[in-house]
């Protein structure tokens, strides 16, 4: 079968973004799962990031990404033990929390009933299945769902209604920091923003070209 004649190891992204600036991007290294995925997504966009837990490097970066796949209470315990909790809340440059990263930026999580970083004054709650689950709704919320009521600057207007990839069992309700809304069991915050802190419940690094556009918007801040 002649599927493709290309034999290169790198496929260009269709976001139109290329390595054109020399900003310093740091991905916070901690006991979480998807750090490599985020780094791979940045590489596809033409950016090289440093993966580090060094407070000085994190503080000096132009952009900080706080990814996460894992469990809230054990991850918070790790952040406290290493002092990364204080480093993160005091950052002044644009910070992007992803998935568990976003949940940890809230005030409290029901997952392990733990107090979190309190950047966003929101509680993280567990999804509850509706009583008569006629539509066979599943937990976790896993797969592609739409973002609506998107707010700039992380989301440009062209991203309204686009699909992004989610995997989560806990959610943040709608509130004053909501930057995007998604409907699953109920409408909830699929993105948050307050001052220099940005966060997405979904995984932009796994959300195809739409996710790449969102990451590119963050890197342009």
């Amino acid at each position, binding site marked *: *079968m002649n*599927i*493709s004649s*290309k*034999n290169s*190891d*790198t*496929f260009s*992204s*269709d976001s139109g973004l290329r390595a054109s600036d020399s900003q310093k991007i740091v991905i916070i290294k901690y006991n979480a*799962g*998807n750090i*490599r*995925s985020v780094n*791979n*997504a940045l*590489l*596809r966009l033409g950016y090289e990031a440093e993966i580090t837990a060094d407070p000085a490097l994190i503080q000096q970066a132009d952009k900080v990404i706080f990814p996460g*796949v*894992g*469990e809230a209470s054990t991850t918070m315990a790790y952040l406290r033990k290493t002092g990364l909790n204080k480093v993160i809340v005091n950052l002044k440059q644009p910070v992007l929390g992803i998935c568990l990263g976003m949940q940890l930026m809230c005030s409290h999580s029901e997952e392990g009933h733990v107090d979190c970083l309190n950047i966003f004054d929101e509680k993280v709650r567990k999804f509850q*299945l509706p009583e008569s689950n006629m539509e*066979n709704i*599943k*937990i*976790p*919320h*896993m*797969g*592609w*769902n*739409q973002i609506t009521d998107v707010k700039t600057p992380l989301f440009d207007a062209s991203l309204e209604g686009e*699909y992004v*990839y989610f*995997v989560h069992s806990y959610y943040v309700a709608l509130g004053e920091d909501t930057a995007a809304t998604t*409907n*699953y069991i109920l409408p909830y915050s699929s993105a948050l923003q307050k001052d220099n802190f940005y966060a997405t419940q979904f*995984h932009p*690094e*796994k*959300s*195809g*070209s739409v*996710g*790449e556009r969102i990451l590119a918007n963050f890197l342009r801040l």
Partner: protein
Amino acid sequence: MLAKRIIPCLDIKNGQTVKGVKFVEIKEVGDPVELGALYAEQGADELVFLDITASHEGRKTFVDLVKRIARNINIPFTVGGGISELGDADALLNAGADKISVNSSAVRNPQLINELAQNFGSQFVVAAIDAKHQQGDDWVVTVNGGRIPTDKRLFSWARECEERGAGEILFTSMDHDGVKQGFANKALAKLSDSLNIPIIASGGAGKMEHFKDVFTIGKADAGLAASIFHFKEIGIRELKKYLNNEQIPIRL
């Protein structure tokens, strides 16, 4: 609204994509990374890569392949085949896999599912079940590519997988696989009704209507297929357009 997922499955042997009919007659169909990237661009929602190489050297080749996939593909992907202990899963996680699937090894050692879920989270663990229809509601779970029947039954084993911490069930009907006459919708609907985790349907796709049926009658969360995509019998773009027209929630 949460979209139904279309998942092309790539069987990998010695670093190449292959597709057999009923797991026996194997044909080569191309480079997995190129093919995966092409499918992602065409609108695939996820990809599954199954390593059907048995040898130890083949395993190492596969881990290297997973690294290349992770670097080049911007949608989630699951890898499976030959994962029998935590170390295998850890190597694939570190190579960049979003999920792993376990099949025969979980049937032989069900505790593996608990260990994987506890160490990496349920979202990382797909329980793949190959089953053969007996009569009525009776489906026997098979291992080694459908060749060996076990003492487990589909519905009770699927429930056990969920209880042990699997995040998704990937059910392949060995009666429907490669036959292209539609998915095992009745069994799929029963699975979906009785479990709280997503069900990926596999085996039987031959026409676009089969996907509509698997999402409506079969109540599946995702539809998986291989040969119809590899041999370009159905394009992913046209399939998703068709499903959208048929009022199935889909990501275009």
